[in-house]
């Protein structure tokens, strides 16, 4: 099925009816997913600076409210309205699959995330391939395909090819019939600008590199241990739970945390299991490219290149992959 580009706004109006519609747009000079305000979303150009992760896994998510005093009352906070995420690219879509695997499929189901995920409809769009540091193809993704998305708009020339991958997608598509016409759309030729030598074999070999101190020393030394890479990364899902109380009422919340912070591994007794930045960055790279694979069967890096854009020390995971491949090769 096909959709004319001009009708996009009408579709968005449809999607936005009594639902929160998030589209890529500028918020105070930073491109991120924001509530649709009627204008056409910025689908082309660089990917958003902040990933869509914030919608399903917010920076600070209130979980419970409590009231102490003579007796303690606890009430759960439910905040999961109907939502539509429009304009996601292949890499971000895959990151949502990674998060689903973590929060829903493998082991314990996280009710907060599951609730939000169930209530959100995801409409992915073909990637215009304009990223300077993108390498999703090396991570096994197709810029012009989003198997996990409810609805996928491919191509992006004069027409979009519309395909639904899930029942939720199909039911939604029924509302679009008036704008859809038959015919298919040529495959987009967007390609990544980087092609690091990532491969499943490298993923296994990487853990073998664990004790190669000299390699890790050289690769991690410029790191400044800030949390930028984890907070712009679409797949980083670590969080910390804390509470803020005001007198005898309070709220328990979870908020993003980063394994690069020094107090991330701070144990009660003062011991820190990963005190040096070498250990922390090694852990981050190996988690992204090896450990996650062992448990979830896919890498935790989707090749979106956001961490490369924003790293203050100009570290580059793609370059790391090439170096690792070189070392593992011989």
């Amino acid at each position, binding site marked *: 099925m096909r959709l004319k580009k001009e009708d996009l706004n009408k579709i968005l109006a449809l999607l936005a009816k009594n639902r929160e519609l998030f589209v890529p747009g500028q918020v105070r000079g930073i491109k991120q997913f924001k509530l649709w305000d009627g204008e056409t979303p910025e689908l082309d150009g660089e990917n958003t600076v902040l990933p869509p992760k914030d919608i399903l896994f917010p920076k600070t998510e209130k979980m419970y409210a409590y009231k102490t005093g003579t007796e303690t009352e606890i009430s759960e906070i439910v905040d999961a309205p109907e939502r539509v995420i429009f304009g996601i690219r292949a890499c971000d879509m895959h990151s949502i699959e990674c998060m689903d695997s973590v929060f829903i499929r493998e082991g314990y189901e996280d009710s907060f995330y599951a609730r939000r995920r169930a209530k959100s409809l995801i409409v992915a769009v073909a990637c215009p391939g304009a990223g300077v540091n993108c390498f999703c193809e090396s991570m096994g993704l197709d810029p012009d395909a989003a198997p996990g998305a409810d609805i996928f708009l491919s191509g992006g020339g004069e027409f979009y090819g519309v395909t639904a991958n899930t029942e939720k997608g199909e039911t939604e598509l029924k509302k679009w019939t008036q704008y859809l016409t038959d015919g298919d759309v040529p495959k987009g030729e967007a390609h990544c600008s980087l092609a690091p030598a990532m491969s499943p074999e490298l993923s296994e070999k990487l853990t073998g590199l664990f004790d190669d101190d000299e390699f890790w020393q050289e690769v991690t030394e410029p790191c400044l241990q800030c949390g930028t890479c984890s907070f712009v990364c679409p797949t980083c899902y670590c969080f910390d739970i804390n509470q803020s109380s005001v*007198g*005898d009422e309070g709220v328990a919340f979870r908020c993003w945390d980063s394994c690069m912070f020094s107090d991330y591994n701070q144990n009660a007794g003062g011991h820190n299991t990963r005190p040096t930045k070498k250990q922390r960055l090694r852990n981050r790279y190996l988690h992204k490219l090896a450990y996650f694979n062992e448990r979830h069967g896919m890498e935790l890096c989707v090749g979106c290149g956001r961490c490369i854009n924003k790293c203050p020390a100009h570290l580059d995971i793609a370059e790391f992959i090439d170096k690792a491949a070189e070392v593992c090769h011989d």
Partner: protein
Amino acid sequence: MSRTGVFVCHCGSNIAGALDVERVAEAAGKLPGVRYAATYKYMCSEQGQQLVRDAIAEHGLDRIVIASCSPRMHENTFRKLLKDTPVNPYMLEIANIREQCAWVHTDREQATEKAIDLVRMAVAKVSKNKPLHSSFIPVHKKALVIGAGIAGIQAALDIADAGYEVTLLEKESSIGGHMVMLDKTFPTLDCSACISTPKMSEVAAHPNVTLMTGSTVESVGGYVGNFDVTIRQKAKYVNHDLCTGCGLCETKCPAKVTSEFNQQLCTRTAIFRPFPQAVPAKPVIDPDSCRKLSGKARCGVCQAVCPLGAIDFEDKDKLITDTYGAIVVATGYELVDWAPLYPEYGGGKYPDVITGLQYERLVNASGPTEGKILRPSDKSVPKEIVIVKCVGSRDKKKGRAYCSRACCMYSAKHAHQILDKIPDACVTVFYMDVRTPGKNYEEFYDRAREDGARYVRGRVAKIFRENGKLICRGEDTLLGRSVEVPADMVILETAMTPAPEIRELCARLSISTDEYGWVQEAHPKLRPVETQTAGVYLAGTCQGPKDIPDTVAQAGAAAAKVCILFSKNEIEGSPMISAVDENKCCGCSACVRVCPYRAVTLEEIDSREINGTVKRHVARVNAGLCQGCGACAAACRTGAIDLLGFTNAQILKEVDALCL
């Protein structure tokens, strides 16, 4: 979770009359961590305190909040109460709902609301209190007195008489200071030597006093009860154990230099005693003026003539270190160097324009003129004498706005002495005011005028030479016309200034001076003989210009303070002082800089880091010096140093609790 008890006091009707104490207690009962809340008519009474003891036992309380009057009133009362209960005395907070709530607000509802807020703040703060224990500092019962003028001598005598060891330092070669230079003292006209020399010999002979002349303080470390002081004793070049003080060497010494003691009026030899009644009565060699020691010639006459071989040209300065429990600063004063300040008075080029101290040496029987008043230029008896007061004092333009306090009285004394010793002398005193604030002072001043001293109200503008006379041109403000008084000799009553190098000494003792260099007392009215550094006291003119009666009174007071300190074997330091968490401290010395008492120092420690044990610097607080002001805690970015009793966590909790 804390088990806090809240006790709201009625204070009779003082509090209960102005706000609803029951509602405050009821609200307190619902606060987090509060296990018991009650009110009582008089919490500070015996029954009120018993109520607290019972509640602690019955409810197993571990923190107490008393909502009552100001903590400045009864905080200690309730701390003493807690001493004999399982609760540490510092697990206590007081909410001031009387002076700052009940008494100052008219609207009963608002006052109750505020009292509830204040109790909530106290409960929030007490939840973060930690048990604190006093630290005890040993006291070395040995005192150091710096300066052996009348102030230092009196203080040393009093401390020694109280049975404690004293080391009395004097930078000159003899003790006695300025008082021993004087002829008579007002208002009783006692002969100064008759009342000071006995004290000098008494202090020299006192078994508890170690006298060290030619000595200054090189460095001071440590803190109250434990000052490690290094003293530099200048080389004497005369072995005082062998020397009997026969004086043969002084008569043979060829070198002649002006005598500082006699205010440059006569000369002295290189090997000398400053004045006949000097204590110790044995000479020393001044290396700068001695021909042999200054390398000008081979001389060595004194060594040759000395029958006991007491002369030792190889003598060296000695550095002696000892530990003292208390230090008394009694460094006295200097007269201002008036010549550069007053070109209009001749700037020192007229020999017959002399200072008050030079006059004292002229009129003193053991002085250069054996007591006969002879003017320095031609040694003739001056008939017409002018005394000019406030030279350098009370004059911002000349750099000193303060009054030197003693010159009004000693200028009257000078007038009286002149009229007494020179039959038909004529004395004119130029004055701005005559200040006679002591006992029998006014009567003494009247007698001086009755003796014939002419008091002219006005300042001398210029002194110049005219046909053999020194013309003092001034103004007589009472008659409203200028006046010129010819004089054979002019005595300038110059201002008192602090002793030289006082600022360096104070820096070493970490006490401060005011803008002129007078030592800063802890509190001008309530703690005049103490300084901000615990264990360092002061006496006499080092603190500011004053006369001998006040000086001796202060000396006694300083000695009493020392004896109070020495009456205990150890001092109980307040536990509410700063403490450092060495794990968090990065040794940036922000705290070291802001501490007014230099109580925080950077120490090197061995620290286990990731790559093995390394040496690094951390801050360390000296319990004896820290007074608990908390400036360091506010300056520390990491919160590594914190003030116990007012920690960051406590204050943050208090601030949060207020804003509900």
